[in-house]
């Protein structure tokens, strides 16, 4: 069943695959992943695009209140590069978070007043405070965390999972993507299809975007004047003619194509069924918040994500834009948090309620954090924070990750990793590991190299956080 399923959805690539990879794709005996028993069967990645401020949301330390207004010591900055946006600044005054922080749950995790719902589930989360990346601007940073390299052309995390593990649902793609625009900064930084692209992997593994409206998948709806029975009859005719052609020529592609048209037909039912929220009870909407009723919002996407995970989609990735608070930190960050806090927490709780959290890995994070120093004059109403890749916070839940812990720490200024550093490639190695995949052995030959998600440099699984 599994083999047939993958064959039907992923199709067959004649151009880019060797015999071994082909058999892997079709779920044959040579399938190499998982390498070991997985802890998680699926992933939901709540990607916060633009660079959420770790300082104002999670990475709190009381001493920062005392440092407020002081010049960030040169010894802390370490002379490393900053973006062209603040490189010309003569002063780098520390801006303590203008928000209240409290410790929550038995774990005592610090969480900002902007994230009250997340605070309530703190004991379910694992905070990684020492995540870091090499890039200092959006495009290279978001490309790195999603594909393992700053340069375009590589395959995204989700496409690797689709390639390696296929789908558990015969009627849905294995990797689905949902986009939303935040109310903090509008428009937020742009997104790129390469973030869920397949790079050198066969294109059938790229993320399929699900969009609000009548065509959740592009071109899903029949044209006007064509109803389901007319379509069914046309497909039967098509199968007859394609079957004849396959018989006459021996062309295996013609046979596969019959299967693909059947799958397309099934998607015309399965996708609307997936996106139809009318059957969700009232308490679910109160759990996810009022936005969950508005198609295309982050909240609605979180609810959709849960429905996808229930149906066995391998990877669901949300991209929420607007986390780029160079300016107007106070106003924008409140708005971004309001968009996302309740639904993110609701998704975790909902998965736990359904017994799915155990084998679903939830990841929340962006491409980098933000500087402790003020961009613009300290205290000016329009001031904010610049990009900061040297440390930022990501949280994970479920999927075999220890709940209620914090891994890693930053220095007093939240500027450098003090302990427990996790490079973004280590993060990806850890995600793969939870899916039963050894990132070093999970390769695809292209351009003379055995390509892998985590690149050529050494990466490590963060074993300290594994349950």
């Amino acid at each position, binding site marked *: 069943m599994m083999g047939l399923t993958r064959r039907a*959805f992923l*199709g*067959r*690539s*004649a*151009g*880019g695959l060797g015999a071994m990879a082909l058999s892997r794709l079709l779920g044959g005996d040579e399938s190499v992943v998982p390498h070991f028993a997985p802890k998680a069967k699926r992933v939901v990645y709540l990607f916060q695009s633009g660079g959420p401020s770790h300082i104002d949301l999670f990475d709190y330390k009381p001493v920062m209140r005392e440092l407020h207004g002081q010049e960030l010591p040169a010894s802390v900055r370490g002379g490393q*590069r900053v*973006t*062209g*946006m603040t490189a*010309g600044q*003569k002063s780098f005054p520390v801006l303590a978070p203008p928000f209240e922080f409290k410790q929550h749950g038995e774990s005592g995790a610090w969480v900002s007043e902007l994230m009250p719902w997340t605070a309530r589930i703190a004991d379910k989360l694992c905070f990684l405070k020492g995540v870091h990346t090499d890039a*200092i*601007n959006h*495009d290279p940073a978001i490309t790195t965390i999603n594909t393992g390299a700053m*340069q*375009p*052309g590589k395959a995204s995390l989700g496409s690797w999972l689709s390639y390696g593990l296929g789908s558990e649902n015969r009627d849905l793609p294995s990797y689905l993507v949902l*986009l939303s*625009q935040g109310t903090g900064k509008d*428009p937020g*930084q*742009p*997104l*790129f*299809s*390469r973030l869920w692209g397949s790079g050198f992997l066969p*294109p*059938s593994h790229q993320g*399929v975007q699900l*969009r609000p409206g009548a065509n959740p998948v592009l*071109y*899903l709806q*029949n*044209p*006007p*004047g*064509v*109803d389901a029975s007319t379509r069914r*009859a*046309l497909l039967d*005719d098509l199968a007859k*003619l*394609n079957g004849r052609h396959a018989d*006459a*020529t021996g*062309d295996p*592609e*013609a046979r*596969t194509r019959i299967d*693909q*048209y059947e799958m*397309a037909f099934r*998607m015309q039912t399965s996708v609307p069924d997936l996106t139809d929220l009318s059957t969700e009870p009232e308490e679910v909407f109160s759990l996810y918040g009022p936005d969950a009723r508005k198609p295309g919002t982050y909240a609605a996407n979180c609810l959709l994500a849960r429905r996808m995970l229930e149906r066995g989609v391998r990877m669901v990735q949300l991209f929420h834009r607007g986390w780029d608070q160079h300016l107007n930190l106070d106003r924008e960050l409140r708005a971004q948090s309001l968009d996302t806090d309740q639904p993110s927490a609701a998704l975790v709780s909902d998965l736990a309620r359904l017994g799915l959290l155990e084998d679903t890995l939830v990841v929340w994070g962006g491409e980098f954090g933000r500087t402790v120093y003020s961009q613009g004059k300290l205290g000016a109403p329009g001031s904010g924070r*610049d990009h900061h890749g040297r440390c930022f916070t990501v949280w994970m839940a479920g999927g075999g990750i220890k709940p209620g812990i914090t891994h890693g720490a930053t220095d007093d200024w939240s500027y450098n990793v003090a302990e427990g550093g996790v490079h973004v490639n280590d993060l990806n190695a850890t995600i793969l590991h939870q899916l039963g995949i050894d990132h070093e052995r999970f390769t695809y*030959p*292209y*351009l*003379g190299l055995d390509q892998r998600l985590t690149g050529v440099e050494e990466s490590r699984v963060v074993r300290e956080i594994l349950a």
Partner: protein
Amino acid sequence: MFIACVLLQLSGTSPDGLDFSRDVRPVLAKHCFECHGPDAAARKGDLRLDLEEDVVRDRGGYSVVDREAPAESELLSRIHGGDAFFDAMPPEGEPALSDEELRVLERWVAEGAPWGEHWAFRPPVQSSLGGESGSVAIDLLVQERLRAEGLEAAPAASRSTLLRRVTLDLTGLPPTPEEIRTFLADDSPAAYEGVVDRLLASPRFGERMALQWLDVARYADTNGYSIDGGRHMWAWRDWVIDAFNANMPFDQFTVEQLAGDLLPDATVSSRIASGFNRNHMNTHEGGTIEEEYLVEYAADRVATTSQAWLGLTMGCARCHDHKYDPISQREYYQFFAYFNSITDRGNDGDGGKNSVPFIPVFSEEQGRRLEAFERERAEVLGFLDEMTPARAGRLEAWAESEARRAGSRPAPVLSPWSVAGPFRAESGEEAFRVNFGPEPGPVGQAKVEPDGGASEIAWVIREDLTDGVPHALPGVKASTYLKRAVECEEAGPLQLSFGSDDAIRAWWNGVLILDANVRRGVQPHQERVRVVAQQGRNELLVKIVNDSGPGGVFFELESSGPPVEVRRALAVEASARNEEQHLRLAAYHGSIDPALAEVRAELDLLRQEIDAIEQRPETTAMVMEERAMRRPAHVLMRGVYDQKGEEVQPGTPAALPPLPADARPDRLGLARWLVDPGHPLTARVAVNSYWQLLFGTGLVETPEDFGVRGSMPSHPELLDWLAVDFVGSGWDVKAMLRQMVLSETYKQDAAVGPELLARDPENRLLARGPRFRLQAEIIRDVALSASGLLSPLIGGPSGRPYQPDGLWREMSHYGSTPATEQIYVQDHGEGLYRRGMYTIWKRTVPPPILAAFDAPSREVCVVRRSRTNTPLQALVLLNETGFVEASRALAQRVLLGSSGADEARIAELYLLTVGREPAAGELEVVAALLERERARFAARPGDAEALISVGESPRAESLGAAEHAAWTLAAALMLNLSETVTRG
């Protein structure tokens, strides 16, 4: 009979013979080179298994491979698990050798470990084949392999199949019913050859060939990084189409694209061609460190150029020596040095404008008008040359008086430059606008921290800023002022010449004489200005505004008074002047003679007309242009832009043929080296790409990698034969394709039985004809062509066909200016029906229809596309507005075009889509569909009306709605057939 005789003379390895290059090196490369290969930094145990001498050398009593006593070879011990002293290889944790790989190594050692250079680095050798050539030679070499495999070639495909195949291959369009009928009716032996020649001569040929090249060249309509703003490179795309249509020899095709700007006789066309290496992505993200991206751009040029022409993965040597191929990191940066000193910017191209450097490109109409004005100007100039007696008199008088003064006109004396600044602003725009103090007029204030005001200006004398050469200036988003005194003993004209990086303004005695708000690299003589000097002290003030990257300035005082040649002529006794001197004096006098003022005024008017056109070119094209001051290239540690190691000069890898001793150290030298007839890779890579185009897979299955990790050619002798033939033909692309499609190999039937399919699923042996799914753009073209909607327009700006609402907006930085391509604005009319290759290509959101059929994003060079088969493709063909519209237009076409019975119309549908007559069983299916849908649509006229209203093209109101709708579904059935989207 004849073939058999020739084959007997062919010698080659038997299928069982072990070939080092084919069988052994790939195993060593796969399992051993990572630690025992070309990468010096990663090397362990002081052992290189890629070098023969290192493998056999005596290591103090033993050697890795012992040719005298093979059984003693250390290699054997290691691959069999090692011993008490030495570990097994490959080490634990690394992939183990398969049994087959073990056997290969054992046998190789036992046979005395024969060695051989990697096949692709040896020059190709052409088998004589008993003097056979062309398509016959191809067939001989394919059949030799079939014979060795015990297989037979398939019979020829049916004539209709063959016609569709070759028409799609060479033009990307299906044959028309007319062409099919003509061909089927012509049973002369030359009929097929005639078709091939017709197709090669069709302008559609150039489009089809360009289509393949656009992926290689990563051509797109947007910049790719960050907000992915718009750019304009279609002039380059059209150059490619024209080059293929004109059958430009491949060596010229190569040289113009890699170095068209450096040719001694560079033209607008060859400069446009050089844009090949400007097609890479570029960024305009705020906060970008320019140096970092300049390195990325040069790295992209290296990766693309090496893949496209050499079939080598040079990009792998950016951070360390190549793991498998003989390319060191140092050699990588030598290659990089060819592409590293361009006047481009790390952060540029915002606002929908091309990034520098670019050139204007004029439309044909503009070109004609320019030519007319230039002609008129030449006429007026001719009048200026005419020597009337009156004018001769004035000339003589002037020359006499001027000669008397000669020698008494001393050259002006220039003080050294005094420099102030740089003064920073928030942007280059602002720096240009604001007067930081030195300029005439009110002093302004830039919005940044006050770096200076009029009172604080400190002028520094800079003797080092010499005239006649460009100099670097510091400061980004900043203005620098330069001033100097020019002492003249008497009043008279001066010619000043300037260059700048970026914008420049200049004042002569307080009067603005130059005002150019440009972004560019500094070059000598970018602007020339004539001024009139007053006697005594004159003041020259220059303001240079650098927006980003390095800044720079150039200045030269070109002349004062009459040019030096004129002064020399004047110095000669009037009677002793020769013809040339007379002409020179006359010409100069013409430019100052007060009596000719009106003529000169007319010339000025013409100049204005010409300027008016030149300031509004139809488009611009990004080009390559070398910096005046060479930007040094360094080895970059781990490939990181600011980790500079040793400085390197341009050069090519030592494993490839050496550059000629007199080779230019620039891209032109590199391009000429690539197309040297003795080069082992260029011709092989090129003919392989043509083979791939026609057969679906190259003779080398990995066109992107001809190195040791790439796949071996399926038919090495054939690849070599074609490569040598290609060079010998003068790199004649059409001739190469012609002989390929004329071969019996190409013409074979593609049908396959289960036995052969199991044995050779990818058709590497060519015991049948090639069959593969059409590429994305061609699937669209087939539908548009069959329906009659296809626009015949070749080239020009890209079209914007139907696209689901909001597709760009949900990912883009909407709100920016329209030119930045953040919001999709669909075309109406012809723009909806252009060939797939003209669909606007936004890199971060590639055209959804094409992406569904495996089109790449065009972010990086791609030399072969995948071919998947997915349900999303079915949804496109069934439901996308353009395809549904094509169905109804196709229905209309057969309803209006052929009269009478359904059978005739169904037959026409078949001809239009799959290029053949339907079989009886097929007719029945379509006829039954028609009957069923006629009834349904008759009962539900609203549905019929809705279906035949899809799309913006007008429909024939004369057709009954139900009838038209039923036929629309029949047409949709045809457009969705596997056979329609496949070329069999």
